[in-house]
């Protein structure tokens, strides 16, 4: 059963990857990273239960905090560099 949930999460991650590749704007990619971050947190938590090792939850906690800070950091940098809709020109 945990397997089913992890496989669904993997599918969702794959869909998120498609959005990250396609763009079209940089913000879409940051959004995809953010979503994949959430999905990874859940994946790690589910895997921890699947293998019966609850200390995995520490990793999930770290992910929540770290991925938040890096999303914020990305946005601050992106808005100081002016070329934000990079790929629409290609």
């Amino acid at each position, binding site marked *: 059963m945990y397997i089913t949930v992890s496989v669904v999460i993997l599918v*969702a991650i794959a869909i998120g990857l498609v959005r990250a590749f396609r763009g079209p*704007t940089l*913000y879409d990619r940051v*959004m995809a990273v*953010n*979503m994949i971050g959430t999905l990874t947190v*859940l994946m790690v938590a589910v895997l921890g239960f699947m293998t019966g090792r609850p200390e995995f939850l*520490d990793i999930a906690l770290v992910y929540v905090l770290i991925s938040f800070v890096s999303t914020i950091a990305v946005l601050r940098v*992106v*808005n100081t560099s002016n070329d934000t809709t990079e790929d629409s020109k290609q």
Partner: protein
Amino acid sequence: MMALALDLLSWIFLLAGAAFLLIGAIGVLRFPDFYTRLHAVSVCDTMGAGLVLIGLMLQGGLSLVTVKLLLIFYFMMFTCPTAVHALAQAALQGKLKPVVEDRES
């Protein structure tokens, strides 16, 4: 008997959560512009994550594991909207024009 019911309930939560995660991901793929996609991310962050975590809490029972899951849940309810808001704000300042329609469904 009680344990079985609890188990069943937790599986329902887990599967429903997984379904919402998938729906959110599909929304991120389908929606037409960046701002509308943010709503799909919200679906993932709130309902998907919430239900999966509640399902796991039911499995964990009354233990420190459940407390940690609660902490993850609590953190997510603060960080996820902040990140989504920061994304929208950054895109707005970056002069990304939202698609606005007046067509009522």
